[in-house]
């Protein structure tokens, strides 16, 4: 089945590149691998019959946000990450930090597992239903976004506006303007 081969290829690529983002010492390569990972995710969206989501993924993440990331990394001028010194006095080795860290990690794994299980359940419920493929149409997507998910949509935009105002306030220089 060529479809499942493609699926495993895209997801394999997404997972391997995402793992390499963390395992990479050169931040420049990390950024590029993250872009590759986003590209693989876009491929998965195309397979899910959601070309609009795929293209939006490329435009917003790979095309805009990662360009900014690259800009910052290039300015950092840090081709090599500093090696952490792993001795007893390292802050991450303190008993309290380690315990909380383990707790958070377990919580994350539980959450991920439950989300995945729910996704399988939802997938079986919606299997064979005719209205599942509506996400492929931009018109329907927009309609759903501005009716059923109106509150979430507006709340998100206010959140982004607040972040934007915050960034402007932080970046503003006091004193006479240039």
């Amino acid at each position, binding site marked *: 089945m060529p479809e499942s081969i493609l699926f495993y290829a895209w997801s394999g690529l997404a997972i391997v590149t995402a793992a390499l983002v963390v395992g990479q010492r050169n931040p420049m390569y990390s950024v590029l691998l993250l872009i590759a990972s986003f590209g693989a995710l876009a491929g998965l969206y195309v397979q899910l019959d959601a070309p609009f989501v795929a293209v939006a993924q490329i435009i917003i993440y790979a095309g805009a946000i990662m360009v*900014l990331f690259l800009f910052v990394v290039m300015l950092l001028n840090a081709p090599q990450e500093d090696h952490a010194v792993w001795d007893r006095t390292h802050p991450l080795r303190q008993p309290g930090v380690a315990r909380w860290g383990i707790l958070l990690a377990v919580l994350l794994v539980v959450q991920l597992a439950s989300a995945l299980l729910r996704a399988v359940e939802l997938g079986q419920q919606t299997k064979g239903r005719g209205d599942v493929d509506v996400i492929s149409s931009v018109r329907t997507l927009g309609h759903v976004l501005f009716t059923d998910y109106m509150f979430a949509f507006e709340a998100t935009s206010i959140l982004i506006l607040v972040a934007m105002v915050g960034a402007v306030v932080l970046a503003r220089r006091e004193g006479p303007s240039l």
Partner: protein
Amino acid sequence: MDLRFLVQLGIIGLTFFMLINASAVLVLAERKIMGFMQQRYGPYLVGPHGTLQPFADILKLLFKEELRPKGSDKWLFNLAPLLSVVAAFAAFSTVPWGAETTFFGLLDEPVALGVADLNVGVLVIFAITSMGVYGIVLAGWASNSKYSLLGGLRASAQMISYELSYATALAAVILLAGSLSLRDVVDAQQGTWLGFIPHWYVFLQPIGFLIYVIAGVAETNRAPFDFPEAEQELVAGYNTEYSSVRFALFPQAEYINMATMSAVATDLYLGGWHGPFLPPEYGWIWFLAKVGVLLFTYIWVRWTVPRYRYDQLMSFGWKWLFPASVVNLLVTAALVLYFNA
């Protein structure tokens, strides 16, 4: 193998062939027009009136030695020009350039002239052109040179600033046409007003067209917005350290991007292949003529308008172009709502 499949493969091949040749023709056209504007002949020695100059140029570049500076990043240095060119070619994949045709009855069902027609075609072009900047940015970083790095930084900042206005100008046209497929947008521009004004979106969206053209010039890094290479300030900017074939790929990508920008502008604002006098099967002649006019304007602007200052570019993009495009989009949306309701 059936005939239809072969014809479609042929169309894809033809599109690719035209793009490759577009860059050669544009190199020559640019030098000839520049020569005319500066009261000299331009290239004149190779072939009749210098018409074979692009071939001489590419042969020269092919036989040059390839150099890579010490301390540069080998992988990214080699990858960057390829990324630029691949993105430039791929962006054209959803641009239609002619009406549906049966090739004078050769086929039973008509095929469309163009590589692919997606229902999110406009966005695909936008997504791929926004990936093209990585070629320039990576070239700037991987060269391990101050001038290249500055060029790459400028490219990334400039792209982000002008992509916003560009996309907002596009959105207004999409609102008018009610479709994200470029073929639908072109077909929505059929017919005329009062019998003689063609039903083109440039007349409904004059400000949008202007914004599109300005942002398009900035996106393709052409003068007066050619800051990533600004030869008087940065030697040659992001491609300072490149030589031989890899150097040739950058201008190639630039010229193909110019052709793509002009083709998309023709499809969105100038009615694509629709025009008087010619039957629809020959619409591609109109299309090529309109693209030609836009490309000439590109070159014309480059040799008449001096380069801005970098801070002027940024403040113009954010303080004038982007607000103008947002107002344009809002007014368009209100009018579409009013007339459709």
